[in-house]
């Protein structure tokens, strides 16, 4: 073997090399020798550099992206702690007979809570802090293409989600337990039962009343910071059911795994909603109608009191590894665009609602027809629906604000009306390419006044009782103080929801070719920028091909030249 190895070393080409390097230093350095040395050094350096680059780009190596490091630091030691045990609070240790009594007990210690809460959008259902400005908000002129309008809080069906007792709206007392109780007890139903049993004069029900009182007493002390279930009771079921409104908020987020949401996953970071939706004086950070969630993107390093509402707050504006090309995207593309590849990944979400088809009967009775996913595809009281799962978002420029068409705005019924649509374009420094769920549908509009209409749905004169759309509109528009001509038809509308929950693990983020591709690019409708791979410029293509051909020609002619001049060979 050794001999063989020795033979190997004595092979002619290596011999030449060794001889070259074994030459004594005092030998004068010829230009060719100098050139060879330089080329060798360059080749070796390039080889090592390329190795380093390959390993630096690999996600498997130990180096952690800055964004992850910062985010971990930001959420360190996040456990909540409290200095109160509500089971020991005297004011709560009594037999309550109404919700209002409970609120009084809460306020006996938390004296400013209701005053603070009365100023928030969760109470007023108006976007503006000024109560006389009713342009935007569920209690104002705002409409959507789901149940259309809150009819100035006159539609009692909607008030199930208002934070007051017994659907009294702003005329009632704040129901603190809606957000701050984890027992799951339906207090309103329990108090209703106590009242009914007390009035029916049946001695058999006395024990039941005592049982209910005991249940209430126990449940009332289960005071908590708002849990996912508290928030989800309304926000997961907005629009009349699970997953109807938002594509990225449904009951699957009550106990998600990290594959569904890396932040909320119970096997991931296990964040509650309030981890990001931080609160000041009961004002909860988040998008409000026309207003963005935050005016500027700030990391907690810049401002540790900024609301932790954006990705940038924790992950910084350069979240990927230092040499990653992805960091060059963050001034144009939102994090959500790549990290939420699809929404409604567990439960389906509603994508279409056609009010024009509402009101059909079977045997003279309203009916429900179920379709795929076990979801209703037709309801006499609401019309026709379409549901989808694993939906690919639609992408638009967005600076975080939305433009809204209210019941008081003039529309063009010949066009699809954008009831809610993102604001922003390439020139806006705050705008990024953002993913959206676009809910489409048909809803009534005034043929004469050219405005969207606000039919009343629940109650004695509501459409769900009378099935008379014209009367429901007349009554509904009256609650808003907007005149109705008496003639209506249906117009197609869209409503855009920003997709920002259901963040997938990084390994499931989008590949470059989902967007940088000529055919079926996810960003096919994004204008205002040149996207390599998606876009084509004849000038750049010609220059590119000329460079390639030039390089090939150079190599070819150099080789030919050397061949014919026998360059490199000793005489």
């Amino acid at each position, binding site marked *: 073997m050794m001999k063989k190895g020795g033979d190997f070393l004595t092979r002619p080409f290596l011999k030449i090399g060794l001889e070259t390097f074994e030459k004594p230093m005092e030998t004068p350095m010829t230009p060719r020798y100098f050139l060879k040395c330089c080329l060798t050094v360059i080749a070796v350096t390039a080889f090592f550099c390329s190795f380093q680059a390959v390993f630096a780009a690999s996600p498997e190596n130990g180096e952690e992206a800055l964004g992850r490091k910062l985010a971990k630091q930001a959420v360190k030691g996040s456990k909540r702690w409290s200095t109160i045990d509500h089971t020991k609070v005297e004011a709560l240790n009594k037999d309550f007979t109404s919700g209002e009594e409970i609120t009084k007990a809460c306020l006996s210690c938390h004296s400013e809570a209701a005053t603070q809460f009365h100023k928030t959008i969760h109470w007023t259902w108006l976007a503006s802090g000024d109560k006389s400005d009713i342009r935007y908000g569920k209690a104002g002129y705002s409409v959507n293409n789901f149940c259309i309008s809150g009819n100035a809080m006159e539609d009692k069906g909607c008030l199930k989600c208002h934070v007051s007792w017994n659907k009294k709206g702003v005329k009632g007392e704040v129901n603190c337990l809606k957000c701050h109780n984890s027992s*799951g*007890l*339906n207090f309103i139903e329990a108090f209703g*039962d106590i009242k*009914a*049993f007390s009035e*029916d004069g*049946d001695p*058999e*029900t006395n024990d*039941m009343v005592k*049982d*209910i009182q005991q249940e209430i007493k126990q449940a009332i002390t289960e005071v908590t910071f708002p849990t996912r279930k508290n928030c989800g009771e309304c926000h997961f079921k907005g629009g009349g059911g699970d997953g109807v409104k938002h594509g990225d908020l449904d009951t699957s987020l009550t106990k998600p795994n990290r594959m569904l949401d890396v932040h909320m996953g119970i096997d991931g970071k296990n964040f509650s909603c309030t981890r990001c939706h931080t609160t000041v004086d009961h004002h909860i950070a988040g998008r409000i109608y026309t207003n963005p969630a935050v005016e500027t993107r700030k990391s907690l390093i810049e401002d540790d009191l900024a609301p932790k509402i954006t990705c940038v707050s924790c992950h910084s504006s350069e979240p990927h590894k230092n040499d990653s090309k992805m960091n060059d995207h963050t001034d144009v593309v939102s994090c959500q665009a790549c990290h939420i590849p699809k929404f409604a990944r567990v439960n389906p979400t509603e994508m279409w609602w056609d009010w024009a088809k509402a009101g059909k009967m079977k045997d003279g009775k309203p009916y*429900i027809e179920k379709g795929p996913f076990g979801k209703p595809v037709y309801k006499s009281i609401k019309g026709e629906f379409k549901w989808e799962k694993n939906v690919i978002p639609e992408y638009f420029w967005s600076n975080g604000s939305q433009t809204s068409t209210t019941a008081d705005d003039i529309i063009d019924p010949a066009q699809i009306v954008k009831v809610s649509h993102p604001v922003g374009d390439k020139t806006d420094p705050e705008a990024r390419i953002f993913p959206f769920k676009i809910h489409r549908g048909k809803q009534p509009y005034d043929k004469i006044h050219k405005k969207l209409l606000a039919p009343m749905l629940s109650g004695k004169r509501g459409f769900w009782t009378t099935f008379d759309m014209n009367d429901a509109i007349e009554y509904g528009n009256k609650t808003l103080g907007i005149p109705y001509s008496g003639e209506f038809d249906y117009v197609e509308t869209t409503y855009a929801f920003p997709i920002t929950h259901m963040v997938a693990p990084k390994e499931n983020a989008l590949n470059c070719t989902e967007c940088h591709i000529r055919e079926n690019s996810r960003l096919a409708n994004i204008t205002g920028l040149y996207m390599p791979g998606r876009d084509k410029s004849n000038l750049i293509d010609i220059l590119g091909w000329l460079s390639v051909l030039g390089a090939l020609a150079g190599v070819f002619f150099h080789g030919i030249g050397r061949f014919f001049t026998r360059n490199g060979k000793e005489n």
Partner: protein
Amino acid sequence: MFKKSIIAIMVFMFTIVSFSMAFASDGPDGNKRKGKYTYRKVYKACAASGEVKSTTPKMSPADKTMKQWKDIFENRKFDEFGCKGNWAELSDKDILDIYSYFYHHASDSPTPAKCQ
């Protein structure tokens, strides 16, 4: 004679109408509110005896349609509910109350209900 015939016809009609009204009721007419708590009590007692782990009943009115509940209660097929012993202890009045609660809050009723 004519007067007697008229009275007889009227009495007959009255009887028929009363009977029809009694049988044409919209489902069982027990105390549904009482039925809800009696039903919960069954599971509290059942959980206390260790037969089930949770005091929350496993079946809710909204789990079935009115027709399905009618079949279950009128034919007394309570196996699906579990807690057999506790069901056996219930009086006919209690069962009628529970039936009323389930029927009037079934999935196809105007107010479907889920147990907490």
